[in-house]
């Protein structure tokens, strides 16, 4: 399908530096992978944002009617917030389109790995595409269809008049007047298979005669076919991607994690008193936060990355803005920063985090995925994920100093070696809380804290099914965690099963 010429066009566009040429439409079929270099940081942040977007698509699809205004408004808001192309206007928003393009391909890599993942990804991308396609006005739609080679031949007025009765009777909801107004297109049966099957289109001589209003079904069907084929092919070429050690952990985390509750709404604001933080940091903080807290107490300072990660976490567990200001100030002025400098230099960013400065965004605490994948710590930093970003030897020492039993430490290190950082963290939780199985998958430091508090206050029964997490994607990722956790050898059988799924896909086609 015009593979080479498309490629040539892309190359040409790049050479000419014509960015408009690269993404002529707000909507795309994602047929050409990005050919430019993408920095790792951008790679990560794009991926996280797209995953968040798809989760939103999934949640909205559950909560609202897809064609309803609520759904559309909410989705537009989210697209706008995450800086994806949010309206199909002609405006040339190069950055958003580029982000849309690149992030789609990153998630393809992450979500081609199993039948379940492919299905979930396909579903959300289809819903997203449907929304965007339906937002197009007629002329943009026409332009897009030409672009993706789905511009079908319209039948002549004479032919339409001759067939008017049949066209009208074949298409539910189409009055004779509408038939006269609408364009009808001649489409092959395989492109119109769903309309054909349901007898919702006029069929003659091996072609379906589809009114403009039903073209979206054709386009969606075509998009689905292309994307599911592409996913299957990507899965086949995955071994070569997995050999890239920069990408593999990221991809694994993209597909194994999820964007859960973002802990931006604090239910227990003000219920934490500053005196308790030291004790809490030992009992209920995940290792990453415990490490940050310890570093803060020892150095009376944290660099920006640490202040963001830890500050937002503290906000998430219930510190008010006033408490946060007091907490940071007290600690910082014990070091090299005096009160005046703190007020001028640091208080602003704390108020900023609480949405009181600048663009007044109420920042949300970082999830494990964000911590693991974006902004890795550099010299002098204490943020990041200790399981991901620590030298195994140092991690071992640290765990031992925290009285984690030796065989538990070994287990954790094994998980780290297999790049199951969140499972390692979960193991750490189990060992430090003396439970066998917490019965859910941890993917947010604030979730860790909340679960810990529940457990310590006896408010939570262990081994309970995750109750508030009612979506399939998450269940499947939870399931996989359990698998790789309990029996390391089972990962092989899983891989085999996935391969079989793939074969089944090819067979079905």
């Amino acid at each position, binding site marked *: 399908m015009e593979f080479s010429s498309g490629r040539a066009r892309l190359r040409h566009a790049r050479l000419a530096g014509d960015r408009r040429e690269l993404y002529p439409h707000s909507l795309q079929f994602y047929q050409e992978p990005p050919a430019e270099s993408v920095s790792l940081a951008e790679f990560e942040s794009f991926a996280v944002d797209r995953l968040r977007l798809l989760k939103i698509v999934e949640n909205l699809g559950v909560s609202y009617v897809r064609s309803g205004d609520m759904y559309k408004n909410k989705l537009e808001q989210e697209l706008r917030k995450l800086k994806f192309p949010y309206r199909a206007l002609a405006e040339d928003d190069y950055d958003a389109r580029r982000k849309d393009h690149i992030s789609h391909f990153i998630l393809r890599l992450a979500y081609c790995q199993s039948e379940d993942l492919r299905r979930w990804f396909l579903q959300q991308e289809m819903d997203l595409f449907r929304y965007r396609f339906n937002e197009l006005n007629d002329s943009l739609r026409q332009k897009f269809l030409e672009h993706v080679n789905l511009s079908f031949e319209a039948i002549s007025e004479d032919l339409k008049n001759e067939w008017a009765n*049949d066209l*009208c*009777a*074949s*298409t*539910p909801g189409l009055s004779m007047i509408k038939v006269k107004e609408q364009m009808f297109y001649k489409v092959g*049966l*395989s492109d119109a*298979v*769903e309309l*054909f*099957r*349901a*007898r919702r289109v*006029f*069929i*003659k*001589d*091996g*072609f379906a005669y589809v009114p403009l209003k039903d073209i979206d079904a054709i386009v969606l069907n075509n998009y689905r076919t292309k994307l599911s084929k592409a996913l299957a092919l990507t899965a086949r070429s995955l071994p070569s991607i997995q050999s890239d050690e920069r990408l593999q952990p990221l991809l694994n985390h993209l597909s194994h994690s999820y964007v859960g509750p973002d802990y931006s709404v604090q239910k227990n604001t003000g219920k934490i008193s500053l005196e308790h933080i030291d004790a809490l940091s030992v009992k209920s903080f995940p290792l990453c936060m415990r490490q940050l807290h310890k570093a803060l107490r020892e150095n009376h300072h944290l660099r920006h990355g640490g202040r963001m990660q830890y500050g937002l976490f503290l906000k998430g567990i219930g510190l008010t803005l006033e408490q946060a200001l007091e907490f940071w100030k007290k600690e910082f002025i014990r070091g090299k920063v005096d009160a005046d400098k703190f007020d001028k230099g640091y208080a602003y960013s704390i108020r900023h985090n609480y949405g009181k400065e600048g663009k007044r965004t109420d920042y949300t605490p970082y999830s494990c995925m964000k911590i693991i994948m974006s902004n890795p710590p550099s010299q002098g930093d204490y943020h990041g994920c200790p399981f991901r970003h620590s030298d195994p030897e140092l991690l071992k020492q640290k765990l031992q100093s925290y009285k984690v039993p030796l065989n538990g430490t070994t287990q954790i290190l094994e998980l780290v070696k297999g790049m199951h950082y969140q499972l390692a963290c979960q193991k750490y939780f189990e060992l430090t809380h003396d439970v066998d199985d917490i019965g859910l998958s941890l993917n947010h430091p604030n979730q860790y804290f909340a679960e810990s508090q529940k457990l310590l206050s006896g408010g939570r029964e262990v081994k309970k099914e995750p109750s508030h997490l009612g979506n399939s994607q998450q269940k499947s990722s939870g399931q996989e965690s359990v698998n790789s956790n309990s029996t390391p050898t089972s990962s092989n059988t899983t891989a085999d099963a996935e391969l*079989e799924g793939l*074969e089944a896909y*090819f*067979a*079905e*086609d």
Partner: protein
Amino acid sequence: MAPFEPAALPELLPVFYRRLFPHGAYGRWLGYGGAAKNYFQLREFSFTLRDDVYLRFQSFGSPQELERELQKINPYKIDIGAVYSHRPSQHNTVHLGAFQPQEKELVFDIDMTDYDDVRTCCSSAEICSKCWTLMTIAVRVLDRALVEDLGVKHRLWVYSGRRGVHCWVCDDAVRKWSPALRGAAVEYLSLVKGGAETVKKVTLSEPVHPFVRRSVSVVERYFAAYALEGQDILGSRESWEKVLALVPEEHREPLRGEFPKKRDSAQRWELLRARMERTRRPASAGKGLPCYADWEIMLQYCFPRLDINVSRGVGHLLKSPFSVHPKTGRISVPLDLQRLEEFDPFAVPTISSLCQELDAAGEPEDGSEAEPKRRGYKRTSLAPYVRLFEQFVEGMERARRGEALRRSDLQGDF
């Protein structure tokens, strides 16, 4: 006609495969003009031997090799499967999962047993000349739709040998159809839905699709003779109650009151039909919903009932044309659509009747060279059926030549 005895098969089959089976045309059919290299070699055949021994994944290098094999093992029944990615006979030697069906004719299987709830004359495997009309209607309805709606050209309709008919759609493009598209076609072509627990199996609503409308007009041509006279579906209170159960309540009571006053099924039907037609007149708009119960009844009683699994699965096997039916001894012969109404399943030659005819005709007088032994069918009542089959194969060959000519013309333009 000589009665058929299954016990005689071991004796008759060698004669059949040596002197009667149309090997030549058969090979030309499945070779598809060498359209794709190896097309014939990749085709699965499967054989049923004596005592229901079943051999799957047989394949042959050439039609001649198939012929020799048939004459060697003399199968009771031949089934045709898909064209595979690898030679079916070697399917065990390729990596699991790599062996996949690639292409096959789009096939339809219509079986009289699926009509048991609407025929009164026979049940299960039995057929009679009365209910055979159902098969005639099925062929007419489907063939119209295949040609006019789906735009296919090469259909081979075959009597299955006992109680049904098969259709082989052989167009190049259609043989490549995905299971999804095959399934969609069957759904497009199906109107009767629901099993024993469903009373009303056809439900129409506005707007009525042209496929339905045209199918109804095909059924109408046969309905009076078949259903009203033959099956007499409104002949007694018991049978018309079955029909009235398909009519909406507001029309059921008045009809129930009027029916006993009428003389026969035809008059009662006219009453019902006229009543339904009135609901559909433009003038009656607003006085209640248009009702298509008459059409629904016609379709429920007469419309073809397809087995979707046979059609959808590319790898699905179907009994081959010119195979013997092991229970009846009848040959699976092609149907002549020009004279479909005259077709009598009971007049179809059986393997025993054909062998008897061969014997009666004796050996050709002046040497067997002018007429090789394998053309023995020419002196039997199988000849007209083989002629039909050859015409079908020739039709495809003509179309291929036309296509080749068109292509070379296009190239000649340079």
